[in-house]
């Protein structure tokens, strides 16, 4: 049952060293504030899951908190590579990182299977693809009706999932609108807890009957963090800070510049700074 908490308390109550954790968001509604809180609390040795790890996973990797990452596209969207991730993969800095790499189709299906309580996802995929040769978690099942061989991957079941959403009502039901990605699946697939940061609490979600609403009893904790997706965006609240994505390339390109940036913008801050960061981006 959803409890309204401060973000710091929600993180320390639910996330443990060594956990498997997802901070999901498909370009939209990426829970940056929550991930920054985890960085500040120094919770490490994590296995990170996300289809599209971008800046905030680059930051967690660069801070040495990540042991392993399950993903399908590790880039800075529209900009280029993730330089902290590269440094970890290519040079083992600040620590080596294990990877389990999939395609988007596989990850999306694996999230769906996780939400559906199944041990695996079955889909038509990976035909001729090199990942099938390097990832032992890509296997096959045979259709007992047609004999077709289909791809199978394990369901994704993190210990804890974090998402950012537009709003919650006072009972703790959460609404996500726009590009909804795999966030519902990430919440429902979490084994121990789903933690949601929201732009605001409202009396009435005002939701369309078929809108993406997560009932209060699917969520462990809700923290109000206006701007908590920045530099990602929140449909109906503020736009994407494309300039910040572009600027990240240079920051992450240098180990010293990266550490200095993290000190200034993450370690020395708190969740309350996000509201300020989106002030100029409000729609």
């Amino acid at each position, binding site marked *: 049952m959803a409890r309204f908490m401060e973000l710091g308390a929600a993180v320390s109550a639910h996330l443990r060293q060594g956990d498997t954790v997802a901070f999901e968001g*498909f370009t939209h509604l990426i829970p940056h504030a929550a991930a920054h809180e985890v960085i500040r609390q120094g919770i490490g040795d994590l296995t990170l899951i996300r289809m599209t790890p971008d800046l905030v996973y680059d930051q967690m990797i660069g801070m040495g908190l990540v042991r392993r990452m399950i993903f399908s596209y590790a880039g800075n969207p529209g900009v280029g*590579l993730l330089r902290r991730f*590269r440094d970890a993969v*290519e040079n083992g800095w600040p620590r080596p990182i294990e990877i389990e790499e999939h*395609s988007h189709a596989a990850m999306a299906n694996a999230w769906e299977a996780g939400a559906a309580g199944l041990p695996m996802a079955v889909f038509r995929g990976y035909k001729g693809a090199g*990942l099938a040769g390097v990832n032992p978690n890509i296997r096959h099942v045979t259709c007992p009706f047609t004999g077709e061989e289909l791809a199978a991957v394990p369901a994704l079941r993190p210990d804890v999932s974090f998402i950012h959403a537009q709003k919650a009502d006072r009972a703790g039901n959460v609404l996500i609108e726009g590009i*909804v990605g795999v966030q519902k699946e990430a919440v429902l697939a979490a084994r121990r807890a789903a933690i949601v940061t929201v732009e605001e609490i409202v009396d009435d979600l005002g939701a369309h009957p078929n809108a993406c609403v997560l009932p209060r009893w699917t969520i462990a904790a809700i923290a109000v963090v206006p701007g908590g997706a920045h530099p990602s965006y929140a449909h109906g609240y503020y736009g994407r800070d494309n*300039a910040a994505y572009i600027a990240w390339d240079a920051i992450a390109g240098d180990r010293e510049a990266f550490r200095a940036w993290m000190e200034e913008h993450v370690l020395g801050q708190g969740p309350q700074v996000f509201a300020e960061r989106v002030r100029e981006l409000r729609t």
Partner: protein
Amino acid sequence: MSRQPFSPDEMMTIAAARALRDDDVCFVGIGAPSAACNVARLTHAPGITLIYESGTIGTAPEVLPLSIGDGELCETAVTTVPVPEMFRYWLQGGRISVGFLGAAQIDRFGNINTTVVGDYHAPRTRLPGGGGAPEIASLSQKVYITMKQSRRGFVETIDFFTSFGHGEGGDHRQRLGITTAGPTLLITDLAIWEPDPQSREFTVTSLHPGVTREAVQETVGWTVAFAPGLSETPAPTETELDVLRALKERTRIAHGG
């Protein structure tokens, strides 16, 4: 035909746009594919359905998205679906007529690498990875690829099979049980390439205005095959250039670039 000068990059985008039809349902990769698809929509193919893997179906953005999930893609879409549904119902369901991809490395059979340079387990350069490409390549009815030519990108042997084109050529797709056509068009800054009907090796069928065979060969790491009836790509029209440049300008302003 335009009297304006145009860049190879503009020619590439416009030539790629021309390949799209009004009734295509197009799964759009970010970057060059996205520009081409939107130029098509804004010129000869207003009815085209553009789908981005973030879940936006039938989108019509005013500016090019920086990411695959920019807000405008959703705001202008016919509908936006969850990402699992996008990959299950729309791509795997066989509803995509054209998957439009870019690449870091490509070989003569249209196999693509966007995963690593070097060995997978100890890469020289770790690239972003495949994202949607492995299944876009196998499940779209056909695949168009657009990328600039360079010796670094057009290689004899790709370092990793991120997505499967025609494999070793011939009927390699069919032998793997892949029922779709695969890469049927490669549009670069210098030329238009199509697979040979038998060998499935990509063959230059049209040179962009002013481009020589030598220029094409210089930027390719294998011995290029040219089709017998090699033609010249019509230069961009005034309208095509105006639409592309206006789109790029709107995009530049919108992204604060």
